[in-house]
């Protein structure tokens, strides 16, 4: 039995409830949307239940909620240096959303929502729109100072300003591609190595080697948990760094 290996299959969208058609495109409530709702539910559970008791000595749930909150508050404060923590709710929501979705993806047979570029790009676009809208609202035309690097001689500005503008446009792209690529690559690698185990077991005498990819799969699983958490953290930090630009653009 030489089952063909199809590591991409896990990322297919499956419509659960069809909501009708626009042109030829089916509009459906997919399992991806279901996972997102579930993530929001889990986050709401952690935060609402966690803050309901408000005891001085935190229980388990409260400790969990407090850890997340303090972690993000610290990150935002370090990146923006903002005393009012205006952007804390946004960064906290993004972090929790990405983290919970990444962790959902690690459950066997579950679907990794963040392995879809459109999801991560949607989040990154939200961040960049916030930067632009808030920056223009707060600083008006001074916001364009963002594109003028400090301490660069005048003639060089002719080259540096276009570079800075392209660099700014590349931000949402790199923000989204990084998260998406990490999750996608990790899940594909896991699938392939796990498949090696099955293939080797079916390969007669070669099945002695089967434990090797098995160990690798175990190690990769651990690594993927790390990546899932780390990428959520990187996403939140970068968001905070970009938002800092909206608060203090250029000089």
């Amino acid at each position, binding site marked *: 039995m030489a089952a063909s290996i199809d590591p991409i299959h896990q990322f297919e969208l499956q419509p659960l409830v069809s909501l009708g058609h626009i042109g030829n495109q089916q509009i459906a409530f997919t399992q991806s949307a279901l996972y997102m709702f579930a993530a929001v539910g889990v986050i709401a559970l952690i935060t609402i239940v966690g803050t309901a008791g408000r005891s001085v000595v935190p229980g388990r749930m409260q400790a969990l909620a407090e850890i997340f909150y303090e972690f993000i508050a610290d990150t935002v404060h370090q990146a923006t240096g903002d005393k009012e923590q205006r952007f804390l709710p946004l960064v906290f929501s993004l972090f929790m959303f990405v983290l919970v979705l990444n962790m959902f993806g690690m459950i066997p047979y579950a679907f990794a929502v963040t392995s879809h570029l459109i999801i991560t790009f949607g989040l990154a676009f939200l961040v960049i729109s916030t930067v632009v809208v808030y920056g223009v609202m707060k600083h008006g035309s001074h916001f364009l100072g963002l594109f003028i690097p400090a301490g660069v001689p005048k003639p060089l500005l002719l080259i540096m300003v276009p570079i800075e503008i*392209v660099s700014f446009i590349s931000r949402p792209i790199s923000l989204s591609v*990084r998260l998406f690529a990490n999750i996608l690559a990790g899940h594909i690698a896991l699938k392939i190595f796990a498949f090696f185990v099955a293939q080797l077991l079916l390969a007669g005498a070669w099945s002695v080697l089967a434990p090797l990819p098995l160990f690798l799969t175990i190690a990769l699983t651990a690594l993927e948990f790390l990546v899932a958490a780390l990428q959520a953290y990187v996403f939140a930090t970068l968001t905070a760094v970009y938002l800092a630009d909206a608060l203090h653009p250029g000089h």
Partner: protein
Amino acid sequence: MNGNDRQDENQGNRAMATDSELSARLRRLETQIDRKRPPAAPDPSPRPGSSGAQSSLGQAMTLSTEFIAGVIAGAILGWTFDHFLGTKPWGMIVFLMLGFVTGVYNILRLSGFSGAKNRKDP
């Protein structure tokens, strides 16, 4: 004429300064350069995730995405330019090169080789 000669003489005198004086001046220059230089590479703020123990694999991933993002951004800009202004090949050529430069610049900034990155701090 006269003034010039005197200046030359002065410089000649200065060149004969003792070794210790020269080395002292050299040291002063070094400290001045150090002060002008951007704070050493592992500046905490803009580099995310690099808090100490980012794996080299993660760093490679970050840097490559940063570079690719620059090129893609250039390509998108160039395509849009051409599409709306009808300057068929030129917008793409110019912006793709600009995107390439941006990608390299992004990598330099992230890995701390360029001084331009501390602009994030007010």
